[in-house]
C-alpha cells in the first residue's frame, strides 16, 4: 500500500517550470486574476533559459528599417521547412516586438543603437539584423527581469526544487500533479484548475549536449502519460557550434553570436567551407545546414585535430571581442585555455533544442487534455523542422503570455479543480517511491548513460532506417530495465540524486522512444531530420506532421495533414523571398 501524500496545495493555475515561458505565463495568469503556484526543479533563476546567449528575435526594425513581421514570419517558415504551424509563426512574428518592448519596461536592459534604441544583431537565416541582445547573456537578462516581476506579484507562490512525477486527470480534464520536494523528499499533491507546462526540452537524452541536467523532457513525458498528443518528435536540433576540447567541456555552447559578429568557419586546410554548402549566407546559414556542413567536413577528413571545425574571430579587435562576446572570451580562456582574441576556437555540433513537443493550439497553448496548456520548448509547432537562433527567447515571451492568460481564463471559468482519482494517485505514488524499495536494482546513472549512448549513436545528425530501428530496440530494452531500477545505493528521501535520476529517466525514455519512432516514420530529409536513405525533401511530407500518442497498445505514431497556409501568407512568403531556392520551396 503506497503512502498517502503528506501535503496538499490548492491553486488556480499550476505552472510547472520557471524558465522564460513559465515565468511569463505565471505573470500573465496572475494578471488575469488567478492564484498561481510556480514549481521548478532547481532554484529560481537557474533555468536553462539563462544559457541563451545570442538574443531575442523581433522585427523592431531598429537597425534594418525594412524589417517587418512578414519578413520574420517568412524566415521562420523557411527555416522550419514549411511544416511549422503557420499560425504560430504568424502570431510570433507579429507579437514579438511588443513582448520585447514590454520586457524593457519591466527593467530588462539591452544594448543600444546610436539613436538610443534597442540594438539588433544579425543571426543565422534571419534576413535582417533582428536580435535584441545584451552582450552574450540575453537569456540571463530575460530571466532576471521576469524574476523581478514574478516575486513582486502577490498572487504568485514559487516552490523551488520541487519535481513533478505525474499529472493527475479526471474525465479527460487535468486535476492536479503529484510532486516531491528535493530537499527532504516529502510528497506534495497539487490540486489545480489548470496546469501550464513550461518544462523545456529533452537535450539530456544525448551525450553531447548544450543542455543542463534539467532538460530531461519532463513535460513531454508528463503530457504524454496524461493523454496529450506530442508532435514533430523527430526534429532535434544540433547547434553547429559546441565546444570540442578538452573532453570535460565537450558540448558546451559556443553562441551563434560569434558568427553574428563576424566569426569565420574554416576546415583544417584553412578553407571557408561554407562556400560549398551555402555560398549566399555562408556562416550565417540555418543551423541545420551549418551543422551538417561541419559534420561532412569532419567525415571527409578535413576536420580540426579533435574532430570539429575552426571558428575564428581573431580578425576583430580584442576590445570588440571582449565587449561583444564577454562570456565566450571567459569560457574559452578558463575552460579550454584558449584566448579567442588570438586563436581560433574548435567547434562541433552539439544537441541544443527540441523542435518537437506537446501539440498545442496556436492561439492559447491548449493541449487536447482539457485544462492542460504548454508553452516554450516543451510545446511544438512554431519552429517546424528547424529553429532559427533567437526565435526561442521570443517564443517564450509570446506564447508564455498567451498560454498563461488562457490558463488563467480556464481557471476562472471553472469553479474548482477536478476531483482527484484516488486510484490514479495511488499508482503514481507507488511508481514514484518504488526505486527506494529496490536496493539492488540497476543504477539509474548507468541506465541514463546507456540511454545517452543509444541516442547519440543511433539518432545522429544523419540517420538511416537500420540504425533507427536498432536504436528503438535498445530504448525499449532500457525502458524494461528502468522499470526495475533502484537508486543505485542508499535509499534516503532527503536530497537523494540517485532517486531523482530514477525519476528523470522516466521522461527521458518517453522522449527517446518518441524520437526513434517518429524518425523511422518520416522517410525524407527535412530540416534537422536528415536521413542517408532518404536524402531529399519529399513534397508529400511537407503536408504532414507526425503525432505521437499513448494507446492501449503502447506508443503510436501517425501522420496528420497540417492546415494549408492561407493565400495571404503564401503571398507573404513568396514576396519576401525572391531568393528562394527550389529546394526550400518544395
Amino acid at each position, binding site marked *: 500500500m503506497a503512502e498517502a501524500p503528506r501535503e496538499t496545495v490548492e491553486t488556480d493555475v499550476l505552472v510547472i517550470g520557471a524558465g522564460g515561458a513559465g515565468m511569463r505565463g505565471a505573470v500573465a495568469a496572475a494578471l488575469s486574476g488567478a492564484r498561481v503556484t510556480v514549481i521548478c526543479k532547481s532554484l529560481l533563476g537557474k533555468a536553462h533559459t*539563462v544559457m541563451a546567449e545570442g538574443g531575442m528575435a523581433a522585427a523592431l526594425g531598429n537597425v534594418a528599417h525594412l524589417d517587418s513581421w512578414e519578413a520574420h514570419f517568412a524566415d521562420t517558415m523557411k527555416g522550419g521547412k514549411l511544416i511549422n504551424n503557420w499560425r504560430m509563426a504568424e502570431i510570433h512574428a507579429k507579437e514579438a516586438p511588443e513582448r520585447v518592448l514590454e520586457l524593457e519596461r519591466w*527593467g530588462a536592459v539591452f544594448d543600444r543603437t546610436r539613436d538610443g534604441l534597442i540594438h539588433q544583431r544579425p543571426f543565422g537565416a534571419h534576413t535582417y539584423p533582428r536580435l535584441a541582445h545584451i552582450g552574450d547573456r540575453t537569456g540571463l537578462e530575460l530571466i532576471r527581469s521576469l524574476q523581478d516581476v514574478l516575486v513582486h506579484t502577490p498572487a504568485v507562490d514559487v516552490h523551488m526544487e520541487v519535481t513533478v512525477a505525474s499529472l493527475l486527470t479526471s474525465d479527460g480534464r487535468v486535476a492536479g500533479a503529484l510532486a516531491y520536494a528535493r530537499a527532504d523528499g516529502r510528497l506534495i499533491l497539487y490540486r489545480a484548475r489548470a496546469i501550464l507546462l513550461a518544462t523545456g526540452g529533452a537535450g539530456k537524452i544525448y551525450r553531447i549536449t548544450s543542455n543542463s541536467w534539467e532538460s530531461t523532457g519532463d513535460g513531454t513525458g508528463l503530457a504524454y502519460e496524461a493523454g496529450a498528443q506530442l508532435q514533430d518528435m523527430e526534429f532535434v536540433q544540433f547547434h553547429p557550434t559546441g565546444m570540442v576540447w578538452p573532453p570535460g*567541456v565537450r558540448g558546451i555552447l559556443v553562441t551563434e553570436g560569434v558568427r553574428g559578429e563576424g566569426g569565420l568557419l574554416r576546415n583544417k586546410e584553412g578553407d571557408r567551407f561554407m562556400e560549398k554548402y551555402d555560398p549566399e549566407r555562408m556562416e550565417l546559414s540555418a543551423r541545420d545546414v551549418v551543422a551538417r556542413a561541419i559534420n561532412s567536413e569532419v567525415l571527409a577528413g578535413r576536420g580540426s585535430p579533435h574532430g570539429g571545425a575552426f571558428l575564428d574571430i581573431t580578425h576583430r579587435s580584442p576590445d570588440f571581442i571582449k565587449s561583444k562576446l564577454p*562570456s565566450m572570451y571567459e569560457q574559452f580562456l578558463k575552460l579550454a585555455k584558449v584566448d579567442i582574441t588570438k586563436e581560433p576556437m574548435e567547434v562541433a555540433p552539439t544537441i541544443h533544442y527540441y523542435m518537437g513537443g506537446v501539440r498545442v493550439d496556436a492561439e492559447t497553448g491548449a493541449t487536447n487534455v482539457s485544462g492542460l496548456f504548454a508553452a516554450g520548448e516543451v510545446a511544438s509547432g512554431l519552429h517546424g523542422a528547424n529553429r532559427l537562433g533567437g526565435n526561442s527567447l521570443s517564443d517564450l515571451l509570446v506564447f508564455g503570455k498567451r498560454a498563461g492568460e488562457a490558463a488563467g481564463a480556464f481557471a476562472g471559468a471553472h469553479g474548482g479543480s477536478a476531483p482527484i482519482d484516488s486510484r490514479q494517485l495511488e499508482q503514481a505514488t507507488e511508481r514514484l517511491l518504488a526505486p527506494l524499495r529496490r536496493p539492488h536494482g540497476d543504477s539509474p*546513472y548507468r541506465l541514463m548513460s546507456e540511454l545517452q549512448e543509444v541516442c547519440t549513436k543511433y539518432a545522429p545528425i544523419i540517420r538511416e532506417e537500420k540504425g533507427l530501428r536498432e536504436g528503438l530496440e535498445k530504448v525499449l530494452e532500457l525502458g524494461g530495465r528502468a522499470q526495475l531500477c533502484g537508486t543505485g545505493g542508499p535509499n534516503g528521501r532527503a*536530497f537523494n540524486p540517485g532517486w531523482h*535520476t530514477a525519476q528523470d529517466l522516466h521522461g527521458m525514455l518517453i522522449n527517446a522512444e518518441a524520437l526513434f519512432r517518429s524518425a523511422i516514420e518520416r522517410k525524407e530529409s527535412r530540416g534537422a531530420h536528415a536521413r542517408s536513405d532518404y536524402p531529399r525533401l519529399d513534397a508529400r511530407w511537407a503536408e504532414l506532421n507526425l503525432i505521437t500518442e499513448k494507446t492501449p497498445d503502447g506508443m503510436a505514431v501517425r501522420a496528420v495533414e497540417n492546415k494549408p497556409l492561407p493565400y495571404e501568407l503564401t503571398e507573404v512568403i513568396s514576396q519576401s523571398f525572391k531568393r528562394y531556392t527550389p529546394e526550400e520551396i518544395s
Partner: protein
Amino acid sequence: MARASTGDHVQQLRMSVFRGDASEGEMITYDVPVREGMVVLDAVLWVQANLAPDLAVRWNCKAAKCGSCSAEINGFPRLMCKSPVSDYGAELSVRPMRTFPIIRDLVTDVSWNYEVNKRIPKFTPSEKDAFDPQPWRMQQEDVDRITEFRKCIECFLCQDVCHVLRDHDRKDAFFGPRFMIRIAGLEMHPKDSLDRRPLLKNEAGVGMCNITKCCTEVCPEHIHITDNGIIPLKERVADLYFDPVRALGRRLRGGGREPDRGRSR
C-alpha cells in the same frame, strides 16, 4: 602535493568531500580518475555516478552561467564547474558554503537570499515613462554602467565570503554584497524612478560593509562589487543623510523630511 596548472596531468585525484547534514558529517575521500580538462564538478559527478549515488550537489549548466555549483574548494569559495582540477594538484577538498545552513552534503539552504530579494522594491519607471507610447531611448554608456551589475549569476559566493554574514552572522542587519549590487543596478538604471537610499541605510544595512573587498575577489563574473557598487551606494546614502549643503538645499525646497522608502525622487 601541488603539481599546478603546468599542463602535466595527474592520473588520479584524491578528493575529499563533505558528507552529512546540518546535525553531523565528515569528510570522505574518493579516488577519481582524471580526464583532460576535468573540472571539480566533473569529479564530483563522477563520484556520484560511480561511488556514492546519493551524493547531494547542485548544478545546472556546467558552463559557469547559472551559479548553482558554489562550494568551497580547498577552503576557497568557487564555482565547481569553473575550477579545473589541474589547478589543484593531486589532492583537494570540497565543502559546502559555510555561511548557509547545510541541507545535505554540498547542498546548502540559500533561501534567505530569496527572502532578501523580495524586500527590494522592483524596477519602477516614472509614470511618464511607463505610459510613453514611444519606445524608450537610452544611451549605450548608461546601459554599460549597469550591465556589470546585471551579470550576476546569483552564485552567492560573495555572500558566503562576506565576514558580516559569515563570521558575524548578521543576516538580520545586512543584505550582503549580492543585493548591494542588485540595488545598484536598479538605482543606476536610467529609467528607474524610486529612491532606495533609505532602504540601503536602514534595512539593507549598507553601513555594515567595511570595504574589505573579499566579495569582489571571489565573484566569478568579475563584478567590481565594492568599487563600482557598494562605494557609490555608500556615497549616495551619505549625500542624502549627512551632507549639510544638500540637507540645506532640501530644506530650502521645502523637503526636509527623510524620504519614505520607495518614494519618487
